[in-house]
Structures are given as structure tokens and as C-alpha cells.
């Protein structure tokens, strides 16, 4: 940090840059093309509602299948050789679905710190995006491993001998989970990690002495 002591007015109006800036509304012609402000407000409100509907849809996509699978498995638990294992599988599927939905809702409803300084808003945004990035990075632990456990428990609950069809099903399941892992890591790497880096760099610049 330098020892520079600022005066009250950063730009002197004799400065040609400051003069040109102050005169721009009269001399230049930048304008927002939208002159219908009521229409603009309506369209922004529409876009916002659309965003909220999208969030509900995304959450439904996460919760409904897990609830349906858990319900189906629970109903059939009494027919299985080991009902406790089958019910545990259902509980795991349901828990993963709920975790996904809760995380998504918390992320979208998180206090964005409107009205705080630009630096503080960036810090909040970094915390949120970093959390998302960590979820994608650790998808194997909180999503894929529970799902694999649930599949294994279902098979165990069904009882009977392990045969070739089980091996084929296991290979297919592992392949499917591997694709999910690759896809999630890719989303994390391409979508969230660059933003985390960008926000970190901005905050470092904010806090850097000049």
C-alpha cells in the first residue's frame, strides 16, 4: 500500500477526461434500446419466474425418481429374502434424492448479500460456487458410492446364488456409475472450477496492496 493521501475529489473537472465523461449524456448517444420501461419490468419479471419454474423442475427431476424408486423397493421388500437390506437400500436412495434437492434449494435461495460491498458480494459468491465445485469433485462419495451400496443391498436382499447374469448386471452398473462420475467431474471442471479460480483471483486483487 502506498502512503498516498487522497483528496476528496478523485477527478478534477478541469481534467479533459472528466469533462468528456460528464458531457457524454449530451454529446454521445448511448442509450438503452428499450424505452418501454413497463415492458422491460414485465419481461425481467417473466424471465425471473421462468428461472424459478426451472428450479422447481430440476428439483422434481431429482426427488421424484428417488421417491418412486424408494417406494417401489419398499413395497417389494416383504417379498425379498432379506427385507431389512432391501429397506435400507430404499432409505439410501431416498436420502440421496433429498440431499440433492435440499442442496439445490439452499444454493438457489442463499443470501446473495445484495447491497453489501462489491468485495463482500464476490466473497459470498465464491463460497457458494466453491461449495458446488466441491460437490461435483466429491460426487463419488456422496452420490455414486451410496447408489452403488443401494444396488448391492438390493441384490443382497433378493437372496439366491450369484450367477453370470449378476456379473453382467454388476459390470453394467459399474459402467453406468463410471459414466456418471466422468460427466459430473467434467461439469465441475468446466463450469464451476474456472469460476472459483476467477473469483479467487478477483478477491486476491481486491485485498492486494497497490
Amino acid at each position: 500500500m502506498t502512503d498516498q493521501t487522497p483528496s476528496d475529489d478523485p477527478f478534477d473537472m478541469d481534467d479533459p477526461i472528466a469533462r468528456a465523461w460528464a458531457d457524454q449524456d449530451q454529446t454521445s448517444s448511448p442509450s438503452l434500446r428499450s424505452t418501454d420501461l413497463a415492458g422491460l419490468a414485465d419481461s425481467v419479471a417473466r424471465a425471473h419466474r421462468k428461472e424459478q419454474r426451472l428450479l422447481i423442475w430440476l428439483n422434481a427431476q431429482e426427488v421424484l425418481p428417488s421417491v418412486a424408486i424408494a417406494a417401489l423397493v419398499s413395497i417389494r421388500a416383504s417379498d425379498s429374502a432379506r427385507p431389512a437390506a432391501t429397506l435400507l437400500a430404499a432409505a439410501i436412495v431416498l436420502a440421496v434424492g433429498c440431499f440433492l434437492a435440499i442442496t439445490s434449494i439452499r444454493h438457489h435461495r442463499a443470501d446473495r448479500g445484495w447491497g453489501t460491498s462489491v468485495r463482500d458480494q464476490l466473497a459470498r459468491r465464491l463460497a457458494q460456487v466453491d461449495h458446488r465445485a466441491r460437490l461435483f469433485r466429491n460426487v463419488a462419495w456422496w452420490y455414486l458410492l451410496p447408489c452403488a451400496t443401494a444396488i448391492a443391498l438390493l441384490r443382497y436382499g433378493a437372496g439366491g446364488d450369484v450367477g453370470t447374469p449378476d456379473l453382467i448386471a454388476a459390470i453394467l452398473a459399474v459402467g453406468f456409475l463410471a459414466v456418471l462420475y466422468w460427466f459430473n467431474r467434467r461439469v465441475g471442471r468446466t463450469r464451476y472450477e474456472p469460476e472459483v479460480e476467477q473469483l479467487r483471483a478477483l478477491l486476491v486483487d481486491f485485498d492486494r496492496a497497490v
Partner: protein
Amino acid sequence: MAPDDRDPDNERDIFAGWMTDHRGIVIKIVRSFAPDPTDADDLAQEIALALWRSVPSFRGDSKPSTWIWRIALNRAISWRRTAEDHCLAIHHAGVEPLAVDRADDGLLVDRIYEAIRTLPAIDRSVVVLALEGLRYAEIAEITGLTETNVGARLSRARTRLSQHLEDAR
């Protein structure tokens, strides 16, 4: 003016009032941060949507202009031009065209904007706020920098601006 909780008509009026009284803030930020007209379209929409989302949180504790500067600068500084932004722009396609017309007719102010866009993002914000006539304390309040840091950044940025404008002559 503070909105009642989730009163859509009131929120709409507040937003329209902001865009009437302070649209110059959005114009200046977009021109200072977006390198081309397509980017300007996207950034202007991003800022409009962020301002709309912020309306329910506005309690009138600060001046509307301060509020708008903070939110708009935050969006502009962290704005990234990626494929995702394109998707977002498509997603926001319902927003009325809000783009900033670029005169780019060789006026000094156009060259000033060009010079500002060569500065680092935070210095850019400080310069725009200073050119708007805000004092060091106000710039520090909006950005979250210390006043001394604002002064040092401004001094450095002013030298670079003058140099750029000299070179462009």
C-alpha cells in the same frame, strides 16, 4: 422507497423507477466492461435480472444509486463470456432488448471507454465511480476497498488512461 414483502406490483414499480432514474449507471458499466455489442446485450440483461432479484432485499438503508452501483459492478466484474453465458442469454431470451447502443463515432468519450476496458476489472470500477464524481469514501463503501487503496489504484489507472489516450491520438 422500500418494497413491501413480495408485493409484485411494488417490486415492479421500484425496478421501473430504478431503470428510469439510474439507467445511466447500467449504460456506463456495460460500456466499460463489455468488449462488443453482443457482450453488451448479455451483460445488460444480466445486470437487469440481478437488479430485479435484488428488489425484495432493498430496504432503503442505502441510496438506490449506491445499491445499483454495487450490484451492477459485481455482475460486471465477475461476468464471464463462456458457452454457459450463451446458454444463459438464451435462457434470458424473454428479457426485452436492453442493449447499449454504441455510437463509437470517434468522440473522446468513446476513446475513454476503450481505454477503461484495457484496465484490470477492479481498477476499471474505481475509475468509473471516480469519473461519476463519487468521493473516495463513497467509492470505498461501494467496492469494499480502503480509501488509500482507492487512491493508489486511481492514481495508477489515471496514468494508464492518459497514456492510452496519448497513444491513440
